[in-house]
């Protein structure tokens, strides 16, 4: 079997396949279907300083080859996570990446500090697709300066690797990526969901109670691959690619576009073991190419010298 182990932001991963935040809860539900130790990492559902109730229903609606969600980041808060879910998750031999959310820069920093003090967490992923309450509710993720401020504050609050997760709802994703890299990001996750909506033509009303929702699933894959490509050319930090990955071939597209690791999201809903299927497919693909995994990262780019992938010493043997 080919070796897909890889280092990212100082973390050694047994393989590059993760599960995406918000699609996998805190792992308990899917642990009934497979051993979480087989995953490269688990990115848990967003955690805030206090519990968030989330949005009223309907929170979800299916769209062509995709779905819109407006869960509203419902979560039981950082204390509950530390007390109940983290100790349980630590029982698995996988990396634990905790996704953090906040309504102000201070809230992000607070959650980051409390998680870091707990130990047993491998990295923090910052979901910047949250409304900035102090500045009129505009998403941190749509303003490079606001995003950079969050990353800086979290960096100051933690010793853990910090992985901002980019919102795709921007005109220039490369600019966002450069902003968070300059602010100290150790890696970058992309993409979060695309803002969309669906209207019930019989009721003549939006389907979702929240009106807007985030589009995910195969429908967004070409958009996400394009953004990974653009960001790969713009920054040097490693990328975690996601958006509509359903099988190994899809994951390979992200790797070739420049992702060092990938995350499986919506696909979990269709097959609880989707991440394992993606891993198996990716292994087959790498094997067929006869190349090493590291060599495939960004390999679709015409001039790879323009941005040298930091390869591990053994990777090219």
């Amino acid at each position, binding site marked *: 079997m080919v070796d897909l182990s890889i280092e990212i932001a100082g973390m050694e991963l047994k393989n590059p396949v993760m599960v995406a935040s918000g*699609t996998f*809860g805190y792992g308990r539900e899917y642990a009934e279907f497979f051993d979480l130790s087989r995953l490269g990492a688990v990115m848990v559902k967003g955690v805030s300083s206090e519990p968030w109730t989330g949005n009223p229903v309907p929170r*979800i609606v*299916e769209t062509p080859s995709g*779905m819109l969600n407006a869960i509203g980041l419902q979560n039981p808060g950082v204390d509950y996570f530390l007390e109940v879910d983290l100790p349980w998750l630590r029982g698995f031999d996988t990396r634990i990446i905790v996704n953090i959310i906040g309504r102000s820069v201070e809230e992000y920093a607070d959650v980051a500090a409390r998680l870091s003090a707990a130990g047993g967490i491998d990295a923090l992923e910052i979901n910047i697709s949250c409304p900035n309450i102090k500045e009129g509710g505009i998403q941190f993720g749509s303003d490079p300066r606001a995003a950079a401020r969050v990353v800086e504050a979290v960096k100051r609050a933690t010793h853990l690797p910090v992985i901002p997760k980019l919102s795709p709802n921007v005109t220039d994703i490369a600019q966002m990526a450069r902003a968070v890299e300059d602010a100290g990001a150790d890696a970058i996750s992309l993409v979060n969901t695309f803002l969309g909506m669906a209207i019930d033509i019989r009721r003549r009303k939006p389907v979702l109670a929240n009106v807007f929702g985030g589009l995910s*699933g195969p429908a967004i894959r070409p958009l996400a691959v394009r953004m990974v490509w653009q960001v790969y050319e713009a920054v040097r930090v490693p990328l975690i690619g996601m958006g509509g990955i359903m099988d190994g071939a899809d994951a390979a597209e992200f790797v070739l576009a420049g992702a060092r690791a990938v995350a499986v999201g919506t696909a979990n*809903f*269709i097959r*609880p073991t989707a991440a394992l299927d993606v891993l198996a497919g990716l292994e087959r693909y790498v094997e067929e190419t006869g190349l090493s995994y590291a060599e495939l990262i960004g390999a679709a780019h015409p001039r790879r010298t323009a941005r040298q992938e930091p390869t591990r010493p053994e990777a090219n043997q």
Partner: protein
Amino acid sequence: MAETFVTAVVAQRPVAAGHYELIAAHHPALDAVQPGQFINVRVARPGSWDPLLRRPFSLYRRFANGDWSIVYRVVGRGTEALARLRPGDDIDVLGPLGRGFVKVPEARRLLLVGGGVGVPPLLFLAQTWQGQAEMKALLGFAEAGLAFGWTEFAALGIEAEVATDDGSLGHRGFVTDLLENQLNRNEWDGLYACGPRPMLEAVARIACRAGVPCQLAFEEAMGCGVGACLSCVLPVRTEGGVQYQRVCREGPVFWAEEVYGHG
């Protein structure tokens, strides 16, 4: 424990206008399924991601050879796709899911109240608990052409009264009229219901007034069906106050007063 499995479609038959019973081959994953639990069925063809999400359905009945069935109403793309399945085709199932109805051990006389496609889990309940309690079914439909299920209850020796909104079959009016009649005339010590939300709310109110323990099976739009995505929440009264619970995990069955309080 839930699992994903593929089994064969055995038969499809119309049971009412736009309603079909899909019979599928025995699979051990469903051997221990409890009434009120559900399955999440893939409706896209193998290899296709459109329609993307699985569709939740209640089990309708189990046959002597272990085959099982669902009854579904064609309302959109997913159920249209189901209606195109033919005997011998594969069906990809995730289940059993959720928490089903609880049988209160001392309950001897149970009333089952079903509205439309809420009838299936109650037939499965009747079949599973047959012989353990006396049961009577009250079934509500919009009109005669959409009615189904009473012969299946009868085959279990359970009397089923039907109400239709337009009076084209049975009582003219709501199934809750039948319920009020029953509770006025007889002693019932358990109420189990599934149907549209307004029906569930009315049933809860009537049950509360009559002081009869009542469980309701809810529907909500679902993503994962296993509790991971938090799409399917319902505000439920708990010791810690009103909290969102997951219809797919803590439900789909809840006690009436958990959801609607006491009246």
